[in-house]
């Protein structure tokens, strides 16, 4: 075994040994691949970002970053620095370069919606990246080879070759699809073209898929860099919490302007019609209880739509999702009382253990309502539940559940959940949702 091992090592170092013995040394041959060139060029501009507990000097999060200006501004992901942004008294930030250089980091700006942050190194940078103009104006062709850089799983700085696949379709937030392996620790690292210009920032990967990874488009980073450069002095670290709250409020304002503006389509469920999202980034799935064993005594046909958006705020707090679902229930051999119990089971607002860290407790109001008794609106049992975000005033998680109350043997149970929504938007959405439930008498 040791012999075999030695042979492999020998084989690997052989070319240089041969070169060394050549009597007339020629100029070194051109480096063999684009990747090698890119990595060599990128090395001094790449950083590892560590979040450490201020009191114990132990690391809690690792990510990557890259330098973009000579005075030491670097781009990373918001989720890499989120602990520090939310609790600057408990954590501190540190950078480490590929060449053993390291130092402290100051946080200058965050963009929660696009998962970006700008930090400043405590020493000037030796070199910096520039943004790819084709990426900034969105003309980079699909299929181009691009390279993601970073420090995956703290194994050392690495380069990953992959394919640029353009913006992700059916997504509310703009993200680029990168067919290559992005692993934990690479977050905040750059994805660059063959000539070393920034296309996007590594942010996430799809767990169910193979090599399906996502990048934040470069132009969001360019905008945030410009904003950070315009700052007269670094903001007070304690001010980021309020800033994050403002950004979440702005994010939901834009999201719900789109949703409320677009309105709902109507889908048919037996004698009822219910609101269904028409937006391309709402994904809908259907389901049934027909195959259950023992056979169900009432049929339930369900559809559920959601926006697949999970805005990262903290390790234990995601927000920004909207989901709506309908269950059309029809009794098979239940009597009216039993069917009412079945409806109740489907219309329950499920509690759970609640994280007091981010939310207040959930409280509900309920009543029988009817949007317009004269028109085609059935009487509904409406349950409206909300909890407030402790840290971000004016934002709530809201759940609306309705059950039609007109027939003894069939019902439509509809549910709308909104995370991180303003009160006014929640009320407007609720009204639109409830008004969208109609019947044929």
């Amino acid at each position: 075994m040791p012999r075999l091992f030695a042979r492999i090592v020998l084989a690997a170092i052989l070319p240089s040994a041969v070169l060394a013995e050549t009597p007339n040394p020629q100029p070194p041959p051109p480096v063999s691949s684009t990747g090698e060139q890119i990595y060599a060029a990128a090395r001094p501009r790449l950083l590892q970002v560590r979040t450490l507990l201020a009191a114990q000097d132990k690391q809690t999060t690792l990510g990557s970053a890259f330098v973009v200006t000579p005075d030491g501004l670097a781009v990373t992901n918001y989720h890499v620095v989120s602990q520090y942004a939310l609790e600057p008294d408990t954590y501190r930030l540190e950078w480490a370069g590929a060449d053993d250089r390291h130092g402290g980091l100051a946080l200058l700006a965050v963009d929660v919606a696009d998962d970006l942050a700008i930090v400043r190194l405590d020493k000037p940078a030796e070199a910096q990246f520039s943004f790819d103009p084709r990426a900034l104006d969105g003309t980079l062709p699909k299929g181009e080879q691009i390279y993601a850089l970073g420090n995956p799983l703290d194994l050392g700085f690495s380069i990953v070759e992959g394919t640029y696949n353009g913006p992700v379709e059916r997504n509310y937030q703009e993200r680029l699809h990168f067919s290559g392996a992005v692993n934990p620790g690479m977050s905040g690292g750059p994805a660059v073209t063959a000539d070393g210009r920034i296309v996007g920032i590594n942010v996430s990967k799809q767990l169910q898929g193979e090599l399906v990874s996502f990048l934040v488009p470069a132009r969001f980073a360019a905008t945030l860099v410009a904003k950070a450069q315009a700052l007269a002095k670094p903001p007070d670290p304690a001010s980021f919490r309020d800033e994050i709250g403002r950004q979440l409020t702005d994010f939901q304002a834009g999201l719900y302007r789109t949703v409320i503006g677009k309105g709902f389509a109507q889908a048919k469920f037996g004698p009822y019609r219910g609101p269904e999202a028409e937006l391309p980034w709402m994904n809908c799935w259907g389901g049934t209880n027909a195959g259950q064993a023992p056979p169900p005594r009432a049929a339930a046909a369900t559809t559920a739509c959601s926006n697949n958006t999970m805005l990262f705020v903290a390790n234990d707090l995601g927000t920004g999702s909207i989901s709506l679902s309908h269950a059309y229930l029809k009794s098979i051999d239940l009597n009216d009382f039993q069917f009412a119990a079945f409806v109740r089971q489907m219309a329950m607002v499920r509690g759970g253990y609640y994280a007091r860290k981010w939310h207040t407790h959930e409280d509900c109001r309920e009543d029988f309502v009817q949007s317009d008794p004269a028109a085609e609106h059935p009487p509904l049992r409406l349950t409206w539940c909300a909890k407030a975000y402790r840290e971000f005033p004016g934002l709530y998680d809201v759940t609306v559940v309705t059950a039609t109350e007109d027939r003894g043997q069939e019902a439509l149970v509809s549910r709308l959940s909104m995370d991180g929504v303003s009160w006014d938007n929640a009320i407007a959405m609720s009204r639109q949702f409830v008004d969208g439930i109609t019947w044929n008498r």
Partner: protein
Amino acid sequence: MEPVIWVEVLTRQRDVISRHRFAASELRVGRAYDNEIVLDDPHVAPVHLRIARDDGGSLVAEDLGSLNGLYIDGGHMRTPRVLLDGEGTIRIGQTWLRVRDAAHPVPPERLIVQERRLWPWALPLVVAIFGIEILGVWLNEIGEPRLTNFLQPLATILIQLVLWVGAWTILCRIFAGAARFERHLVLALTAMLIYSLYDEVTSYLAFELSEEWLVGSRYVVYWVMVGVTGFLNLRIVGPGRLRLKAGAAAALTAAAIAYVAINQSSMQEFVDQPDSLIHRFYPPAMRLGPTARTDAFLSRLDGLRGQLDGARDEK
């Protein structure tokens, strides 16, 4: 007529242990064997007490110079001489005595009233309670009906009933000398039926009127009913000292309610069970209340917003 003196030795609860008749005009009480009444109480002097008639012919008791003295009924003041009226008791050492003469009045004879048989009441009560329970389970059965789903609540009721009635019957047998099983049983069944009906009615009204507190406040009514039933059980055991019994029952009830309330509020810290949820739906045909307009409902939610915003700062 020869003057007769009756001396009764009593328990601490004033029940008669032994009764002694003396034809003499004077007698002595103590531990020594030359007394007319010999007591085995170590806190009594060999010759402790003299019982005699004074000049007016009334019975008096005199302390004959004992260590522990002579006391009147529940008093704390040692007294050398007591006028005996036949009603009050005296204490020497740890022995209670009552002295009466032959003329002491007694209440008239009481007619024997045949205690009513209560069995005929018990049966319909049991049928009603079990019937409501079975109906409730059946109307909420949305899966395959299983025998255990029905038997389990019935077994629960039965166990509660056996424990409650059994405990009271035993207590009654010990303290009142008679078990009075039927009365305890019918009382417990009646209380159960009332609560069971109350439970059904509040469940229905809470849903139809959207008044969650009707269900949320049930535990108060439950413990009040337990308290009242316990008091009535105590009254069956013995009709005396009703104020004390009522006070004890009320205090225990209040303690139970307070405990449950504190427990509920501390559970709320961990479990996010939204606290205004109704636990049962009824068919549309049973609708009772009016239907609100959606807009009116949504505009009423401002109160909820205020509450949640207020809760943001709670730690």
